[in-house]
């Protein structure tokens, strides 16, 4: 053994005190006391947990825990009490938490108010907006998109001021409840190529596009005459008809033919002609069976507010 003085900077260890084969000793590096106590505390916690929570498997069942039941309303509307589990906890939370009760209060308030009252109350508008965003995302956004701008030719844009079926709260509610069937027949075959070209020219001129004057005149005759019969739905002036969901052709908004996206007049004409050739068939399902009246009311207010309604 060397001189102690030269070793004084070496690490210091403790042994367990045993010696085997004369000089083999075991180092003793005890666990810190705080760690030991934390360990004991977690053991005690575990035992307490076993009593109150589902814990031990027994055969094909398990210990359920005592004095820790959860009462909630199940999907049949019956009150149900069962042992602690996160599913029941979630259901109870959705039914009885402060937030859930507050939501219930506000929904009740909104559903018992008239549309006029709602539209004049910033608080009820605010609640409708925040509640309907979720409803819209769950039920409407799949077609109309998250920002309610739809998809041209397929699903109408709900965020602008153009309303095929009417933009008053009453009209919107009817649309939501009963659904809509948007239909325009295909004129391919019924009208010849020249006539369709003429009608397309006339339709474009309605919204201020500059096209051949002769074509406009011929197109107008087809549009307003028995041959085309377009005026049945679109009106002689082309301003559309709410009861048929027929589009207003005189404004800057196109709901089926994507005229605004085309760069030159020839392409715009092609887009309009395609619609006249093939017609339109669009269907919005009825929601009265799937959503409650209160939910439809919230959605109505929300959609009405997006573009400002009518």
């Amino acid at each position: 053994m060397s001189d102690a003085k030269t070793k004084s900077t070496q690490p210091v260890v403790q042994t367990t005190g045993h010696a085997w084969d004369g000089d083999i000793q075991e180092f003793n590096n005890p666990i810190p006391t705080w760690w030991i106590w934390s360990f004991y505390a977690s053991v005690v916690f575990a035992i307490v947990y076993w009593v109150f929570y589902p814990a031990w498997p027994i055969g094909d069942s398990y210990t359920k825990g005592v004095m820790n039941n959860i009462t909630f309303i199940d999907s049949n509307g019956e009150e149900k009490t069962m042992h602690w589990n996160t599913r029941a906890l979630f259901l109870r939370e959705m039914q009885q938490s402060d937030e859930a009760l507050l939501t219930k209060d506000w929904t009740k308030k909104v559903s018992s108010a008239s549309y006029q009252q709602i539209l004049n109350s910033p608080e009820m508008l605010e609640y409708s907006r925040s509640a309907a965003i979720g409803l819209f995302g769950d039920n409407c956004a799949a077609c109309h998109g998250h920002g309610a701008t739809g998809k041209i030719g397929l699903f109408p844009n709900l965020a602008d001021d153009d309303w095929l079926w009417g933009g008053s709260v009453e009209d919107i509610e009817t649309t939501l409840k009963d659904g809509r069937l948007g239909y325009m027949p295909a004129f391919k075959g019924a009208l010849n190529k020249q006539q369709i070209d003429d009608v397309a020219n006339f339709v474009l001129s309605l919204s201020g596009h500059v096209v051949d004057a002769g074509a406009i005149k011929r197109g107008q005759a087809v549009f307003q005459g028995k041959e085309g019969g377009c005026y049945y739905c679109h009106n002689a002036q082309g301003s559309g008809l709410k009861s048929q969901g027929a589009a207003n052709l005189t404004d800057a908004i196109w709901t089926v033919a994507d005229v605004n996206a085309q760069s030159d007049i020839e392409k715009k004409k092609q887009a309009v002609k395609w619609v006249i050739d093939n017609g339109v068939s669009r269907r919005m399902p009825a929601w009265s069976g799937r959503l409650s009246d209160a939910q439809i009311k919230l959605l109505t207010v929300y959609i009405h507010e997006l573009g400002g309604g009518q």
Partner: protein
Amino acid sequence: MSWVEVSNSLTYVILSSAESDLLYQSRAPVFPRSVKGAFRNLKWAVLVLAYGVYFLLPWLRWQRSSGPDQAVLFDISSRKFYLFDLVIHAQDLFWLAGFLVIAALVLFFVTGLAGRVFCGYFCFQTLWTDLFLLIERKVQGDRVARMRLAKSPLSTNKLLKLGLTHFLWLLVAFWTGFTFTLYWDNAPQLIKDFFTGNAPFPAYATTLFLMATTYVMAGLAREQVCTYMCPYSRFQAVMFDADTRVVTYDLIRGEGDKGRNKVTASLKKLDQRQQQGVGECIDCGYCVQVCPTGIDIRDGLQIECITCALCIDACDVIMCKLGWGKGLIRYTSENQTEGKKSPTFKLKNIAYGLFLLLAIAGLTWSVANQNPVDLSVVQVRQPLFVRLSDGRIMNSYNLRLENKTNKQVNMVLMIQGLAGAEIDTGQLKTITLKPQDTLKIHARIRWQPSHSTKLARPFQFNAVPLESSSVGMITTDATFFAPGSQY
């Protein structure tokens, strides 16, 4: 002690079990002795004041035209902090940062002048330890009695005294935790709910947690908190310099040439001691006995010293009795004890003071000049814009109006900076903001951008009050986007 060679480079020292105690230092219990004096009185005064404020404030009622009638209430659910007539809304919470800057500067300023004043007089660890020590002393007696009790074998008397001490500690700890909880809810209602089992879970959790920490920190851990846990003791040291007034033992006066000595027959008088070169310290140990952190101030400035100044009181008592004059231990600086010039206000301290005044002025200005009504604008980004049937472009915005006054405010919304644009808020023509209320409004702006304008166009929302009152026009910036915008 023996040595074992593990490898060529590594050698371990093997300890016997008796020596192994060296591995972990166990706490040497401290039994501070009571002392009377100027600093002790000052500390009691601070303690009474601080406890008075802390324990009574949540019960103070306050008249407000709207909101709760509690003077100080931190209302989490409505996101408002009520401080007497000041209501702090969530978006004004940056004032807290200003307050913390001020607190830090006060700490820098005071520590540079007089050392760890915060630790010694104002820190809650010190205040609560003081109270717990008082309880300990009232139940178990002063230092000697407590030491004797600690050494004595287990008996009914010992159990009773220790039990009563811990019971009273827990009681104080409970009321401390509960009082903290009272600041976050209506106090008179919460106390009823709390003891009938109807209080919300966080109230019980907070109370129990703070009760536990108070009991452990002030009752069991005590000076270990200051020495091992608290970072202040470490970083306050860097704010000291040779001119900082700290609690100091006057080495020259106390030790003389030959060191301190007890009072003996030949060393009774001051002139006798001076002749023999013996210092004025009579080594009575009173300064060590009163120290709550168990150190000897005569060893000089130490990390454990919280500058509670009780050793000054202790030494003054003895020096007065001997008639040798107070101040053997006193607030003084390193330079002063060495007889050098030692200015109180150095450039550093003056600079800290100036920054402190600036920070206070800044915060006061910010609080005093807050907008009575807040208007924040968030643009609806999906869709960013919509083309309308008349060819105009529409952008939508979610506006949030918050009335911070105690009066109802009627406002109309207008826009500025978009020529010919139209603002549409549906049927809400005037907006009525109740006192301390918030409203969210969906506003649509319709505008025909001309082809020459840049199409990400900044403009302003103006909320204009209808009545002439202290509330002026509130303006908030927004941007209008149109197709083809570069943004």
